């Protein structure tokens, strides 16, 4: 082995004092073995750099921003909070609210809303959009495609979709499943008939096809 073998990497890294570096350079002019070694050390250094870059690449791939789950959870909590605020005024517990129940369920305005016909009750439309405009648009679209399946007179006015992940640990329910909270709103704005229904996205698509 050449005497300069131990200085080649340091020379390559410009870490040798000027005098020693000059000696190495003079030696390299005459020693093909050391020139070959320097080339090999250069290549392996470059490959090491590339390997480091590739090691970081999978980690640097863009994924879901870290704030998304927090926002989703906050949305679900807000939806549940709305439910919670309305729940204490369910029928049966308050005789005063029981009479409007019958009136509302038989009301043509409610049925007309459920079958996406012109809505006369401005108050209900307003609440509907405040609580869950997107979900209601989706539901109304589904209703328009399959009116027979949704034409029951006691169909809820407000439907709130709740992701399953917000209620159960990940993997506890099949993928694509979410829950819909149905609420019927009485004329005085109180809530009636809270019902939580599981929904499977694939199943819904199949049922809406002709």
């Amino acid at each position: 082995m050449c005497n300069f073998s131990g200085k080649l990497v340091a020379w390559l890294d410009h870490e040798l004092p000027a005098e020693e570096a000059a000696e190495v350079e003079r030696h390299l002019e005459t020693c093909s073995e050391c020139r070959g070694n320097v080339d090999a050390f250069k290549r392996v250094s470059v490959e090491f750099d590339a390997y480091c870059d590739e090691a970081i690449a999978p980690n640097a791939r863009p994924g879901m921003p870290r704030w998304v789950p927090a926002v989703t959870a906050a949305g679900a909590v807000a939806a549940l909070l709305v439910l919670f605020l309305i729940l204490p005024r369910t029928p049966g517990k308050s005789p005063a609210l029981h009479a409007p129940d019958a009136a509302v369920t038989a009301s043509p305005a409610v049925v007309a809303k459920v079958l996406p016909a012109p809505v006369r009750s401005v108050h209900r439309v307003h609440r509907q959009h405040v609580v869950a405009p997107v979900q209601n648009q989706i539901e109304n679209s589904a209703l328009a495609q399959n009116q027979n399946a949704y034409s029951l007179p006691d169909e809820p006015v407000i439907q709130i979709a709740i992701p399953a992940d917000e209620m159960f640990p990940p993997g506890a329910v099949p993928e694509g499943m979410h829950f819909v909270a149905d609420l019927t709103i009485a004329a005085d704005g109180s809530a009636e008939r809270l019902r939580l229904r599981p929904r499977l996205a694939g199943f819904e698509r199949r049922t809406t096809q002709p």
Partner: protein
Amino acid sequence: MSGDAAPLALPLSRLSTGACEATTLYRELRKPLLRYLVCLGLSSDEAQDVVQDAFLILHRHLASGGSQENIRGWLFRVAHNQARNCQNRYDRNFSAASDAEMDAVSREATPERALLEKEKFQQLGKAIRLLSASERECLLLRAAGLRYREIGEVLGIATSTVSDTVDRAIKKLAEKCNV
């Protein structure tokens, strides 16, 4: 080559009062720090947290009148020590690189070239995993552009030891990879 990288010369005297200089320093060193930490085995999120902590500590260090010499080495040392605190995950990447990571190497190459590159990188990965922790750390810091003296300061070893360690590690890799 790491030795070609000029020592970082930034107007650090105004760092504590000028956001512009701090931003420059952050831009210069964030990526090398992240790469070093990820290669040590930290996840991307962990590495980003460590880098942010390191710059926060730097800010406090400078605000309290700390030394402004060799800020690059200082930052790497802080990040290195922070990474040591994540000891359980410290050697994850280079001690057990997965095939999935190696697949990422060749995602943009032709099939033949991809196969060759994949084999080459797998071979290099195996060789890197056979290095000692000290050898890997020296090579990683060298790849980040640190001089031997700075590497010694980060790892708490003599400059001559760094020189010997880098020399030994490079020769091991060259021998194992037949380059």
